[in-house]
């Protein structure tokens, strides 16, 4: 793996550990919840609170560590929903062809014509915003990308000798699609999943920044940035540190994704 890919793996691995171990790593675990201590409000970074405190006196470092739990939960759920749907529809469109291909591809066109963030916001506008609804909405906007990716890979693999040999041997469509084609598409899919994990986190933060995602007091990178912005530039630490938290996560996933792409020798198509 390349050096930058390795750095990405270290960052992502570190953040995953942070998210898992947050209750033990955080100096004030109770501050992840609805803790209030007005006397501590807006303390700048100091020895007791390395990243300072927010408007109700909660330790920002503790909240940041817990916020990664929200972010990773979002990324995992979105990918777990979007990838299987995209993979199945992409394989079906690319391998079976015919009217199914037309229906699936035109459907993805409709989704892809609208920017994902706007589409997710529109969906959230129909329901009461919550973290769960945000996950569903982002997944809804995300699966067509996987359909397109898997469709393209399938089209290029379906005429390979081993696929035709499997068909001649009598392998049915399901076995050919999931047994012969899908394993050879794992490079591009894994690469895209890794890159997307970063973008999903970014989009989730964007939605909660707009008040459409995680609700207080759940620690979330987006809501933390939103809570800090009115007080800039005097009270800079809530905004700066939670933004940095987003930057580091997205950067880590991007570097790791590039590393995985190089590892599989895949092209630049994803």
């Amino acid at each position, binding site marked *: 793996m390349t050096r930058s890919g390795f750095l990405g793996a270290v960052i992502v691995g570190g953040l995953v550990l942070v998210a898992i171990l947050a209750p033990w790593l955080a100096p004030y675990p109770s501050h992840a919840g609805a803790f209030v201590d007005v006397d501590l409000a807006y303390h700048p970074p100091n020895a007791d609170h390395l990243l300072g405190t927010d408007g109700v006196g909660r330790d920002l470092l503790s909240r940041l560590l817990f916020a990664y739990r929200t972010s990773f939960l979002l990324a995992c759920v979105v990918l777990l929903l979007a990838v299987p749907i995209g993979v199945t529809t992409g394989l079906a469109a690319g391998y079976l062809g015919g009217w199914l291909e037309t229906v699936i591809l035109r459907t993805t066109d409709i989704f892809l014509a609208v920017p994902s963030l706007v589409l997710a916001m529109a969906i959230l506008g129909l329901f009461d915003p919550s973290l769960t609804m945000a996950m569903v909405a982002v997944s809804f906007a995300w699966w067509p990308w996987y359909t397109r990716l898997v469709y393209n890979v399938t089209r290029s693999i379906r005429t*390979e*000798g*081993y696929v*035709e*040999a*499997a068909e*001649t*041997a*009598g392998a049915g469509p399901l076995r050919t699609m999931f047994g012969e084609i899908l394993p*050879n598409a794992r490079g591009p899919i894994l690469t895209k999943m890794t890159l997307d994990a970063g973008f999903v986190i970014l989009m989730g933060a964007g939605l909660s920044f707009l008040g459409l995602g995680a609700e207080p007091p759940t620690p979330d990178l987006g809501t933390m940035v939103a809570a800090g912005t009115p007080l800039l530039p005097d009270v800079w630490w809530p905004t700066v540190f939670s933004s940095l938290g987003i930057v580091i996560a997205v950067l880590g996933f991007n570097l790791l994704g590039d590393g995985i792409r190089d590892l599989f020798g895949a092209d630049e198509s994803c």
Partner: protein
Amino acid sequence: MAELLAVRDLGKRYGRVVALDGISLGIAEGESLAVVGQSGSGKTTLGRLVVGLERPTAGSIRYRDGELAHRSRTRAERKAIQLVPQDPLSTLNPSRTAGANVALPLVVHGLPRGRARLVELFDKVDLAERFVDRFPSELSGGQRQRVAIARALATGPRLIVLDEPTSALDVLVQARVVRLLERLRQDLGIAYLFITHDLALVNSVANRVAVLYRGRLVELGPTDSVLRKPQHPYTRRLLSNVAVVDEAEERLKPARPDDEAVDQEFA
């Protein structure tokens, strides 16, 4: 010899493009029939129709007593007609071991697929047991093509369609694969539909030759007479384009000394 496969007035159109037009030919049990022609002559299409990757738009394909052309094939028919694809780079699934590639038709048909059976199949194509666990990327072109042949043999077929099985291999490896195919045909009595553009090869692999030109069958006859006394002008033109078929070179090809031993040593 009994007729194994009979093709009558076979036609295939893709929209307005006519790929095959009125082809009639038969393959006897244990016979090797070469189909030659330039690219675009329809020879690959003929192979795809015979193995059932595509359905014809006209005519019939009879295997023994069954008409295959316009229906899905039975399990027995699928087992009986197998394919060795063209490109050694893509003939095997790169994410499975050679053994798992060979096991696929066994899995599909619920046949015994234990280690012993795989080793037996690898042995038929002169590959040692250790190749069972190798990945395709660790094999040479000739070895991959032999694994593909082992996979085609797995279901105990009566007819194998070989689509340019040696075109991407160098002459030395080509000669070995051809010898292997010839031996398998004699030992197992399998018939071959040997698709190739290489007339020099036809001489050593085929009992009869069918010449295709723009989707039509222009000549069909015993290899000897087609190569030595071609009747159709297109066949003569094909023959005149062949680089080497003088007697000396022809003798040289199969007479390579002990390249099996060399190959085993470096394998």
